[in-house]
């Protein structure tokens, strides 16, 4: 079966520094896959390569079998590769309603539409309300995003990515910075993502990784260190060494 997302020998060098070192990685369809690694392992660079923010030095990226290595970021999104950001990247002056509406209209191709008043398309509005309910944002739809509690903003971050109707969703530390009280809501929505979306979770928080993921890849010094099921990784002493060493350093 064609994997949802695949990289072949992906490499990125910044001057003399190799940030991503010959990574060949497969994300199966419908997967719940986590990518872990100590700080500075190159997780962010890897995500930026996948989403097209930076071009790779060499190697290829395939989305459902199609080569997207040279595609610009927005086209990758249109092909079904969406992401969330480790640090919220939202539109502070807009409401969640507008933010989600934006993503939905863009996907439906009406983003070019400059004559129709935003919101006059019922189909879009229906969808926005649906997404808002799924991500528990329905009661704050008309608030200014910058006024939302952090947990809600985090939810919105995921909801926007979801609104792009991705085949592959990259979650970059979705729970980072969320206070304990709001955490539960967030984890529940992440767990409830539909199974036809393949999810790659980049995470630091081991509890979250172990509760969510079915497979785990470990990235160390830019290269794939190992990969396996949750149990295999949990039992792998080398991973513990890498990780614990790092944790002590922190």
């Amino acid at each position, binding site marked *: 079966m064609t994997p949802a997302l695949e990289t072949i020998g992906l490499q990125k060098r910044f001057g003399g520094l190799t940030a991503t070192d010959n990574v060949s990685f497969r994300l199966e369809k419908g997967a719940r896959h986590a990518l872990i690694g100590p700080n500075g392992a190159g997780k962010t660079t890897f995500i930026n390569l996948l989403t097209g923010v930076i071009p790779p030095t060499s190697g290829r990226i395939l989305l459902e079998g199609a080569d997207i290595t040279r595609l610009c970021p927005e086209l990758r*999104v249109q092909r079904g590769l969406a992401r969330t950001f480790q640090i919220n990247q939202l539109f502070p002056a807009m409401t969640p309603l507008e933010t989600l*509406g934006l993503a939905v209209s863009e996907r439906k191709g009406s*983003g070019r539409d400059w004559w129709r008043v*935003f919101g*006059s398309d019922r189909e879009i509005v229906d969808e926005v309300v649906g997404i808002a*309910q799924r991500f528990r944002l329905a*009661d704050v739809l008309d608030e200014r995003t910058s006024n939302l509690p952090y947990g809600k903003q985090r939810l919105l971050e995921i909801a926007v*990515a979801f609104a792009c109707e991705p085949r592959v969703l990259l979650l970059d530390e979705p729970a980072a910075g969320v206070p304990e009280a709001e955490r539960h809501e967030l984890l529940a929505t992440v767990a409830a993502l539909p199974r036809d979306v393949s999810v790659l979770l980049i995470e630091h928080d081991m509890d979250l990784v172990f509760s969510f993921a079915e497979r785990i890849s470990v990235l160390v010094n830019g290269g794939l260190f190992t990969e396996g099921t949750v149990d295999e990784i949990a039992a792998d002493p080398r991973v513990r060494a890498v990780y614990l060493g790092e944790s002590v350093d922190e």
Partner: protein
Amino acid sequence: MQDKPFMSSLTTDEVATSLRRKGRWGLGEVLFWLAAAATLFFLPERHLILNEIAIIGLFAVSLDLILGYAGIVSLGHAAFFGVGAYVAGIFAKEMTGDPLTGLAVAGVAAALLGFATSFLVLRGADLTRLMVTLGVALVAGEIANQASWLTGGADGLQGIMMGPLLGMFEFDIFGTTAYAYSLVVLFVLFVVARRIVHSPFGLSLRSIRDNSLRARAVGIPVNRRLVAIYTISAAYAGIAGGLLAQTTQFVSLDVLAFHRSADVLLVLVIGGVGYLYGGLIGAVIFKVLQDILSSMTPQYWQFWIGLILVVLVLAGRERLTERARFLAGRLFGRSAGAPRTAPAREGRP
């Protein structure tokens, strides 16, 4: 903000209404335009300056489209204004004196230039954009200066004869036809601009302005959108320039000068960026102020304009604009303001 059951949230109908409401005309807006129309009849002796205000207002609206909505700073917007003015003038001289045709040609010419130069402002930070736009305007000014066989060079383009508007209304010395013409053009283009900024396209521009990284991440083709709005804005500026050329029946190199670009920026900033009416309000304030100050002290009005600018920035332009938008939001209904908290809406069945 506790977790509430879904029941308390908005229904699809309400959401749609809430979204559309932003695009609806408020009472204040209607009054604003009625007042503008009334000046046609009640202020006959001010039509000349009102005509200039309408033109500068349109020019400022065009800048607001790129600065206020798409976040593109420009120190050379006069390039499009000037090209529009020259094209309209030369067209009237060489082809036909029909104002509307000439205006359309001016808009198209400016749009072409805008499209061509938009690729220069896609990349780079604010400073690069400021310099590039400035450079484009300088080059345009230099070309107009050198091509004196076409433009009249430093002497200005003389001998523009305009035909009657719609074949009926001659341009009169009181500037009444001119003002009515400019005002109607301004109104029509304003309605279009208003439509644009409230459309999904307009929303995507705001998203690019606020966070282009995220805008890309929801699949918005950022560059194409910027090119589109830059071209539209250039067309608007070109039409404003065309109006100036047609109603004054004269074009000089001054239409491309640096101070034109600086003035329009000033106008927009005085009125407030990012809600369209800022350009119009700013144009009124700027021109009236200039008129009063320069009749008080012809030599030194610049000083006061400078002072106002400095104070405005020090006092926190953004904050003032926010207030202006808020007030405008009140006055003009919900259309103008930045998104605000909606009234509490609990207990819906």
